[in-house]
């Protein structure tokens, strides 16, 4: 084959590929800015859809002639209206392709079988927990838009046919949807909205504290079902934020709940670790539980609640200091059988210990606490000069910036400030921007280009951002850098508030009241674990306090 022939073949190949790609994208694409032609009206009660009608988008949706008025009264439910702004074909019923054919949280499915039609709207798919479906192939975890089996089962049930019949004869259409009733929230970041969101997060945690002082650890907002499992570091972290928000709000039920959770920690989880006391269950104590426990108890005592916790604070601080190595690093575990530390390190614990010691020192007045915290912070932000990746590769370790903020007035560490500013620059520059299907994700920390972002990932980075902002102002960082930092915080906090269950998609929830103020895992996975509102609430309240102090907004 001559070169000329090869060139022609290649040219034809790329031209064909271009045309095929364009045809596929055009056939599957939707225009989400279009005016809707039809609307899906549903009546929900107790988290279940009770009635549905599809009407022209111009139909009247209020007053006595509004669709489903009788059903609404009968069920004493809630009416939702989802506008169909555009449609496109579904390429295949191959499970992988079908699952990937929908944007989570934005798209629904319509199936036509003969003269019958059924809809699975975005509310239906949330209620079915059909979004964010992971397809696990070995160690690969592919995130599909929807779980095809769940969708097909639901649609087959709706039409009264078998799944096979549905797949053989059904014609599937993708629906690009937009919520009209209730309208999609678009919160502005103001003192009022921050206060509302932060206190709601604290109130969610307060409602989650049981009579024995433990939390409803992880709850799905759709069915209000509690997942098994418990985690003491998260108990302690949640109690820290609950105490902070309760003291800020001066809300008696919240204060009562914070005291219950703190008492459970101090009386039920404090055990002997050699000559000290630590937070542990079983023979192996981890530093994180004690560090966050110390943080929670310090917050409570500093807020003039439960002064009887002061001895526990001193004990925990002494235990944490006893785990420190000469280079500032901590040994993260303690073997209670052998009565000796284990020099093993895991993520977060050193930062948590530095922050907790710094905070406890406000109460203990012990310079050893500040000194230990300061050495740990220095260890955390010191990397060899040749390790260039340190400037490009960051994890989710946000406690370092909390510790830097906590210690700034007593032991300022400019290296730590540089680390936090650099990390935040990276957070801003890699944040989600301009996703056509989901512009409301702008400012969030990405979990991948085609999946909804996890709220906790954004929340932890914003905790660090807010701590960095305070210190940046104290350290006279250039105004342009402060403005950029603040702009990133505004975007990310708007995203967090947009998806807080305040009230969130309450129509699809069995008991929206108990979930109010919770922060879900993602916009489409409504699992709420106690650390999600803790992290988001800490960022929101921290920013609110700064705005209040400066008299802004």
């Amino acid at each position, binding site marked *: 084959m001559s*070169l000329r022939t090869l060139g022609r073949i290649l040219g034809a190949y790329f031209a064909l*590929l271009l045309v095929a790609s364009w045809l596929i994208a055009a056939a*599957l694409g939707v225009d989400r800015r279009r005016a809707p032609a039809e609307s899906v009206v549903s009546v929900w009660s107790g988290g279940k859809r009770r009635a549905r009608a599809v009407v022209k988008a111009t139909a009247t949706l209020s007053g006595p002639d509004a669709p489903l008025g009788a059903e609404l009264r009968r069920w004493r439910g809630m009416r939702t209206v989802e506008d169909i702004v555009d449609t496109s074909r579904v390429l295949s019923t191959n499970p992988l392709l079908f699952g990937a054919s929908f944007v989570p949280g934005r798209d629904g499915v319509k199936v036509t079988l003969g003269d019958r039609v059924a809809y699975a709207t975005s509310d239906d798919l949330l209620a079915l927990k059909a979004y964010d479906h992971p397809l696990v192939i070995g160690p690969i975890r592919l995130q599909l838009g929807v779980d095809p089996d769940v969708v097909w089962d639901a649609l087959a049930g709706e039409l009264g046919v078998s799944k096979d019949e549905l797949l053989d004869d059904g014609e599937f259409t993708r629906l690009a949807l937009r919520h009209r009733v209730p309208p999609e929230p678009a919160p502005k970041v103001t003192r009022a909205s921050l206060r509302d969101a932060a206190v709601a997060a604290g109130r969610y945690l307060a409602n989650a504290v049981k009579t024995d002082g433990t939390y409803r650890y992880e709850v799905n907002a759709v069915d209000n079902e509690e997942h098994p499992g418990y985690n003491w570091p998260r108990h302690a972290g949640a109690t820290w934020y609950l105490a902070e928000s309760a003291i800020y709000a001066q809300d008696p039920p919240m204060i009562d709940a914070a005291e219950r959770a703190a008492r459970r920690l101090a009386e039920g989880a404090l055990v002997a670790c050699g000559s000290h006391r630590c937070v542990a269950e079983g023979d192996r104590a981890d530093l994180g539980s004690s560090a966050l426990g110390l943080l929670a108890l310090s917050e409570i005592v500093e807020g003039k609640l439960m002064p009887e916790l002061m001895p526990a604070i001193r004990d925990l601080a002494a235990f944490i200091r006893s785990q420190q190595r000469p280079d500032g690093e901590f040994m993260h575990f303690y073997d209670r059988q052998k009565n000796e530390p284990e020099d093993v390190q895991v993520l977060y614990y050193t930062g948590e210990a530095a922050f907790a010691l710094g905070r406890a020192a406000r109460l203990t007045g012990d310079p050893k606490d500040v000194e230990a915290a300061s050495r740990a912070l220095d260890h955390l932000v010191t990397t060899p000069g040749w390790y260039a990746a340190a400037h490009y590769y960051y994890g989710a370790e946000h406690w370092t910036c909390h510790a830097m903020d906590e210690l700034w007035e007593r032991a300022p560490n400019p290296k730590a400030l540089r680390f936090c500013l650099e990390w935040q620059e990276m957070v801003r520059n890699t944040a*989600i921007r301009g*996703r056509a299907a989901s512009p409301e994700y702008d400012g969030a920390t990405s979990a991948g280009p*085609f999946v909804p972002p996890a709220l906790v990932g954004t929340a932890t980075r914003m905790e660090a951002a807010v701590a960095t902002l305070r210190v940046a102002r104290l350290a006279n960082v250039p105004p342009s850098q402060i403005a950029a930092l603040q702009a990133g915080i505004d975007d990310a906090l708007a995203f967090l508030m947009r998806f807080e269950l305040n009230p969130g998609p309450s129509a699809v929830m069995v008991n929206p009241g108990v979930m109010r103020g919770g922060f879900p895992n993602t916009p489409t996975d409504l699992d709420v674990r106690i650390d999600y509102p803790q992290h988001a609430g800490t960022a929101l309240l921290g920013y609110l306090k700064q705005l209040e102090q400066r008299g802004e907004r």
Partner: protein
Amino acid sequence: MRPVSHSGARRSEILFAIGNLVPALVLGVGLFALPTRWWPADVTVGSAVVGVLVTSVCAVARPELARLALRVGAGVLLALGLVIVGTAALSLAFLAGIHGDFGQGGVALMLLVTFLVLPYAVVYPLIELRFVAPRASAALTPPAPKPPVEAPSGDGGAAA
């Protein structure tokens, strides 16, 4: 003993044969690193890697077949590259249709993947094919001995 050409063309043949090891290694390691075994990918990429290696060995060991072997190896590599690029383009078209503009992060990621594949599996074999193409081969073949120059004729060469 087999005669070995030390001409520039032969050196280039050996360089290309050795150079083929780079894309073969990248593709082989990439295939091995995939966390699951999926036979269509395993067979396609695995066969291509073996093909490129065999033709490279042949190009070094059999000078008389070097051009043909390199052509086959480059062709195999180019075909695989075009399959990868085609699959990636169609997948991107599908995702773009579903998600619309998926933001700077997604675009950067896709461009990065594209630019990691293109140099090894499309640009390099094209350069190689350009070198070993039959026309180039002919041009690089040592020139045939010229016929002896005839003695000038009596008419001063006017008849030539």
